[in-house]
C-alpha cells in the first residue's frame, strides 16, 4: 500500500500507452502510469531515458499517441486540467529587466505588466512568496536571484492558481545542499496540505527516499514503479544506478 496524506487520494491522472516519436526514433514508448492526489511521485532514470520527453508530452508541448486523462474523486473527467510546472532551469539573459513580481503577474493575469502592478495584486504575491520564505525578492530582477530563490519563485508561480498536477523538473540543479533540503521539505508540505498530485524528476536518490511516496523508473518505457524501497531493490534500478547505500 502506498502512502497517501491529507488528500482523498482518489483524484488521479492516468497515462495510457503514451508513445512519443521523433522522425524514425522512438523516444518513449507505451508508458502506463497513474498519479494520485496527495502523492509525491519521483521520476527517475538515466540521462536520455525520456524523462524530459514524458514531461513535455504531459505539458502538451510534444505530440504523442496514447491517452492522458485527469479524473476527479468521483471519476468525473477534468476537461481543462491546471498544470503547475517548475522547469529544470531558466535559460535567460541575466540582464533581462523582468522583476519577480512582473514574472509572477505575467503568469496568471491578463493585465499587461508594462502597466505596473495594482496594490492588491502586489500584496497577494508578497504573501505567496513569504509562504515560501522569499518575500524579500519581490522587486528583484530574475537574473539577480540565487538558484534556491529562483526555484522558490518558480514554485510559488506554479502554485497559483492551485494546479491539479504539479510537475517539478529536476529542481535541484544549481541549488546548494541546504536549499535543496528546504525545497524538498516545502514540496512535502504542499503535498500534505493541498489536494494535488506531484511529479518530481530528480537525480538525488537519498532525498527521494526521504520524501517521495512512489518512484517510477523509466528507460524509454516504465521498467519499475511502486513504493520507493521496492523500486530501489529491483534489478533494473541496480543496473542503471549501481549498488547504492540506501540506508540514509
Amino acid at each position: 500500500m502506498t502512502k497517501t496524506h491529507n488528500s482523498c487520494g482518489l483524484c488521479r491522472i492516468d497515462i495510457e500507452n503514451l508513445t512519443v516519436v521523433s522522425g524514425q526514433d522512438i523516444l518513449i514508448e507505451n508508458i502506463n502510469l497513474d498519479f494520485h492526489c496527495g502523492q509525491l511521485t519521483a521520476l527517475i532514470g538515466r540521462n536520455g531515458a525520456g524523462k524530459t520527453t514524458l514531461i513535455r508530452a504531459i505539458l502538451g508541448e510534444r505530440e504523442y499517441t496514447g491517452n492522458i486523462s485527469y479524473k476527479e474523486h468521483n471519476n468525473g473527467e477534468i476537461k481543462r486540467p491546471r498544470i503547475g510546472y517548475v522547469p529544470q532551469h531558466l535559460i535567460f539573459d541575466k540582464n533581462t529587466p523582468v522583476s519577480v513580481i512582473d514574472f509572477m503577474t505575467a503568469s496568471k493575469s491578463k493585465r499587461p505588466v508594462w502597466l505596473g502592478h495594482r496594490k492588491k495584486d502586489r500584496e497577494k504575491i508578497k504573501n505567496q512568496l513569504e509562504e515560501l520564505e522569499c518575500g524579500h525578492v519581490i522587486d528583484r530582477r530574475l537574473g539577480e536571484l540565487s538558484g534556491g530563490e529562483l526555484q522558490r519563485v518558480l514554485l510559488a508561480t506554479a502554485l497559483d492558481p492551485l494546479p491539479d498536477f504539479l510537475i517539478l523538473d529536476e529542481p535541484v540543479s544549481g541549488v546548494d545542499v541546504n536549499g535543496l533540503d528546504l525545497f524538498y521539505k516545502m514540496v512535502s508540505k504542499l503535498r500534505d496540505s493541498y489536494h494535488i498530485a506531484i511529479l518530481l524528476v530528480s537525480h538525488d536518490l537519498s532525498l527521494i527516499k526521504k520524501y517521495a511516496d512512489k518512484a517510477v523508473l523509466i528507460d524509454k518505457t516504465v521498467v519499475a514503479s511502486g513504493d520507493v524501497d521496492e523500486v530501489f531493490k529491483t534489478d533494473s534500478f541496480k543496473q542503471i544506478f549501481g549498488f547504492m547505500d540506501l540506508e540514509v
Partner: protein
Amino acid sequence: MDTLYKIMEIVMPFDFMNYEFMKNALLATIVVSPLFAILGTMAVNNKMAFFSDALGHSAFTGIAIGVLLGLKNPIISMLAFGIFLSLIITKVKSTNTASTDTIISVFSSLSMALGIVILSKNGGFSKYSSYLIGDILTVTPKEILLILVVLICTIIIWHIIYNSLLLVSINTSLAASRNIKTHLIENIFVALVAVAVMLSIKWIGILTINSMLILPAASARNISSNTRQYHGITIILGLISGISGLIISFYGDTSASATMVLVSSLFFFITLGIRKFVR
C-alpha cells in the same frame, strides 16, 4: 493637418519648422520611434537583433516581387514577403537543430541577393538604392497616418498578448504549462515586427532600420530593473534620439536616420557607463 502644423510651429519656434517636409518628418519620427521602441523591447529580450536585420535586408526581394508583378506601389508585396519570411524563420528555428544564427544568415543572404539580382537586371538598380539609407524627409501625411494606425494596433495587440509573450521569452515549457499557445504568440509578434519594418523602411533605410529597433531597448535594458521602467525608458530614449537626430541632420545636412542611430548609440554607451550606479 494645417492645425497640427500650426501647433507644431507654436511649440517649436525654430527655423527648421518653416519647411513642411521637416514638419512631416518630425511627425513621422514621433510616431515611428515609440512603435519601434515597443517592439524593440521584446526583440532584444528574445535576442532577435539578427532576425530583424535579416528582415530589413529582405525588403529588396519584397520590392522585386512587386516590380515583377507590375505593382505601382510595392508595399503590398513587401509586407507579404516580410511576414512570410519572418514566419518561415520562426518555424525553421523551432524545428531545426542547426544554430539559429546560421539559419537566419542563410535566409538573410538569400532574400537580399535575390532581390538585388532581380532589381539590377538591365542595370536599373540605382533607382532602388535610396532604400539603403532611406529618406524621412519624403514622408507624406498619408503615410504618417498609416504608421499611426499601425502604432495604435500594436499597442492594442501589446495589451492583449504581452504577458504571454513575456513568459514565452523566458521559458516556452513554462508558458505551455500555462495553456499559452506559444507558436501562435511568437508568430503574432514576428509578423508585427515585419509589418512595422516594411512600412517604415522607405524612410528609415535597410541599413539603419535594425538599429532603430534594437538600440533604444538595448540602452534601456542597461538601467531598468522591471518591465514598466524598461518600456518607459525605451520609448523616451527612442523619441529623444529620433527627434534630436532629425534636427541635427537638418543643420548638419546629413542622413536623418543615420544621425538618429548615432545619437542612439551615444545613449547606449552612456547607459552602459552608468548602469552600476542606477540599477
